């Protein structure tokens, strides 16, 4: 069995950023950009005497799923929590910009290209946002990524993939939400403020960050699926994520706007209805919202095996 085949049934959660990048696309199709052999380590970490990584914690490259070119950005949570600095940020920005140019080239040079031959961008998030050792550069990079997201609209779809240990928080939390599609596993978490900070702000009685059940109910894949903040909730294997991406690769590009949760005045109006619901409900727990969505026994739903959850769950329609 080749490395690639072995990767397919691996837990996405347990895999590292490179294994995810390689395993999500077809066997042998992945070409890495600014990879370890380019030795683009962070000069800022070096100055501070912090351990460096040859890829600065972000794997970028291109691969294929079937006929679909896939620009891949995969963050490594085990390296400084996946935090984004100057080099890693530049890799994200560069990959998004290159994907856009590539898509424009295909539109221009291959007017008859089939939908599935047009590229997509996949970003596997595993980060708490800005890397504090180079906080200012990291922050500025976040803004650049967001700018690239908007520039990619209608040219190349961007898919957020979240199934990692660290989850996706801080500035990258709104970046991920701004993508066209969000695919999660139940182990993925998406949000803005990490649980410890919420506890600090609101007190342990209101939010106990050690209560991981609560933490996952608030930002985990199951909750985000109910809220519609994640479009697809898949099993925790690389193959399952890959299958979802393959389907997206074949999806007409014009359809991607329908997956979005933000990015137009109409979507803002829709979200504001939710905000009004939040104000009205003042939920003590995400389970209140699950119940509001029509799920009679939220606790049992949270405990149910994922397949049963997907079959039984009612998603919020407000």
């Amino acid at each position, binding site marked *: 069995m080749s490395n690639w085949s072995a990767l397919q049934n691996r*837990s996405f*959660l*347990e895999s590292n950023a490179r294994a995810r990048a390689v395993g999500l696309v077809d066997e042998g199709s992945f070409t890495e950009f600014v990879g370890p052999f380019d030795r683009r380590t962070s000069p800022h970490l070096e100055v501070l005497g912090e351990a460096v990584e040859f890829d600065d914690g972000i794997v970028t490259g291109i691969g294929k799923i079937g006929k679909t070119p896939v620009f891949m950005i995969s963050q490594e949570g085990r390296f400084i929590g996946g935090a984004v600095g100057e080099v890693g940020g530049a890799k994200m920005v560069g990959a998004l910009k290159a994907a856009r140019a590539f898509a424009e080239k295909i539109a221009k040079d291959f007017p008859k290209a089939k939908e599935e031959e047009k590229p997509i961008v996949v970003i596997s998030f595993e980060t708490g946002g800005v890397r504090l050792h180079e906080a200012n550069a990291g922050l500025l990079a976040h803004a650049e990524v967001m700018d690239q997201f908007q520039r990619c609209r209608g040219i190349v779809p961007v898919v957020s993939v979240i199934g990692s240990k660290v989850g996706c928080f801080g500035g990258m939390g709104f970046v991920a939400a701004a993508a066209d599609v969000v695919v999660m596993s*139940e*182990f993925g978490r998406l949000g803005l403020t990490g649980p410890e900070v919420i506890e600090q702000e609101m007190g342990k009685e209101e939010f106990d960050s*050690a*209560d*991981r*059940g*609560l933490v*996952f109910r608030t930002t*985990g*894949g*199951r909750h985000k699926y109910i809220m519609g903040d994640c479009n697809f909730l898949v099993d925790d294997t690389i193959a399952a994520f890959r299958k979802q991406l393959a389907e997206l690769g074949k999806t007409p590009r014009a359809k991607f706007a329908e997956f979005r949760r933000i990015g137009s005045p109409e979507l803002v109006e829709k979200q504001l209805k939710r905000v009004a619901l939040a104000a009205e409900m003042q939920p003590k727990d995400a389970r209140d919202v699950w119940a509001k969505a029509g799920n009679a026994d939220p606790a049992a739903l*949270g*405990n149910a*095996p994922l397949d049963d959850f997907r079959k039984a769950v009612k998603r919020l329609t407000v």
Partner: protein
Amino acid sequence: MTKQRKWDNLATDTAERMAAADRFIGKGKEVQSGDVVALLEAVIRPGDRVNIEGNNQKQADFLADCLNQVDKGKVHDLHMVQSCVPLASHLDLFESGIAKKLDFAFGGPQAGRVAKFIREGKIELGAIHTYLELFGRYFLDLTPKVSLICAYEADREGNLYTGFNTEDTPVIVEATKFRQGIVIAQVNKIVDKIPRIDIPAGWIDAVVQSPKPFFIEPLFTRDPALITDPQILLAMLALKGVYAEYNVASMNHGIGFLTSAIELMLPTYGAELGLKGKCCTHMILNPHPTMIPAIEEGWVDTIHCFGGELGMEKYVAARPDVFFIGPDGTLRSNRAFAQTAGHYAVDMFIGGTLQIDPYGNSSTATANRVAGFGGAPNMGCDPKGRRHSTEAWLKCGQELPCMKDQIGAMPRGKRLVVQGIETFGEGRAPAFVEELDAWKLAKNANLELPPVMIYGDDVTHIITEEGIAYLCRCGDMETRSAAIRAVAGYTDIGLKAKPEETRRLRDAKIVRTPEDLGVDRNRASRDLLSAKSMQELVTWSGGLYEPPARFRNW
């Protein structure tokens, strides 16, 4: 005419105290939670020996808090005799002078304060014991006058249900009540009918429903997601070089990640080695969630537990062929009996440690924390009173080259006591050291002896990533130290190993490397774990295991 001697002073004293407390005790021995402080002031006298129940898991925390609120003019200089002092309130008693002297077994999270208080004279230390040793002294010279215990439920008459987490309650109550002492119980709930009677009402003097359920910690839950590749390598070595080598049927597992890895690798690597049905059939351990896959695969015949484990209630109840289950259908744990089995009946103890010295003495002590012993030394030793024979015990004894120097040609077995440890721990601290930190601790905390968890003469095997040192095959101290050096890797001790000496030890099978044992290091990856996450444990259990919230990641 001789003067009539009085033979019931203890009972008279107790009766006087209970008379003073009478107004607080209602029907069914019930006391209102607001009256508990006054009750304690009525029944406890300065200098009394007092026990607050609490072990690794359930804690009489409300009663401990109440004891801290008594009038120090009335109650002071108590002699605390109890298994553990893991709560801040246990130590606060010494801070305020309510308590003076301490005899205990385990310090837990308060280990740092215990050391400090001893040094500052706030604690007059009796001794640090093992559980069985301390329980023994409850019936000898350390019998509590007043015991503050905890249970899940009481009925209207005062019968107690201690259920899943029975733990130390029977031994404390038996010692106290049958010396005419006073037993006060905190319960989570007073109900009409309890599932079964664990402690009869006649042995209880007062019952209070605590405002909050007692504190209980899931101490024996190890998240499989945190098991590392080096731990898996050690587990492979253990399974191949010890479990398979000796066909170890009965054992106790420590609570570390190494033994969790072993448990999770029974259905994979263990099965591959053909150990099912031969090894791990009888075990003395708490309901470790990481045992679920092996239990489900039919490895285990019997498990008896010291205590329970949060979240395992339903699973354990659903496996009555394996666990000790009451007529009501729930587990009954019992620390005294499990420790007895762990001391006399099992073939092997295996667990992790923090430091090992050149003689094989093994210690988890650090320089400024009096953590105590708990139960490990009872199991991590060769029980001299053991008389029954098993394959593993006999084989280990037969390997001992020095046995004949002590008892001639008489055959005798030996408990396998296995210590698994990576040569360097956190922050690259060496695990093999010239002198254990236990010596520094003895000095810092004015202890009579360095607190050694397992003495070198009891350790039979040391496993590191470099291989296994079969200390039971060493005839003298020089060979033992050489074998230890040979597996001590790149620590200063390990660097003293001489290649030719190590070669000789390997030839004699006193030291065996992974290669010698046929253990493929490249397979040491998490792929060998039958469950890699908490959720997979839940799946293995058919949804019966309900992990505490802090262990959930979905």
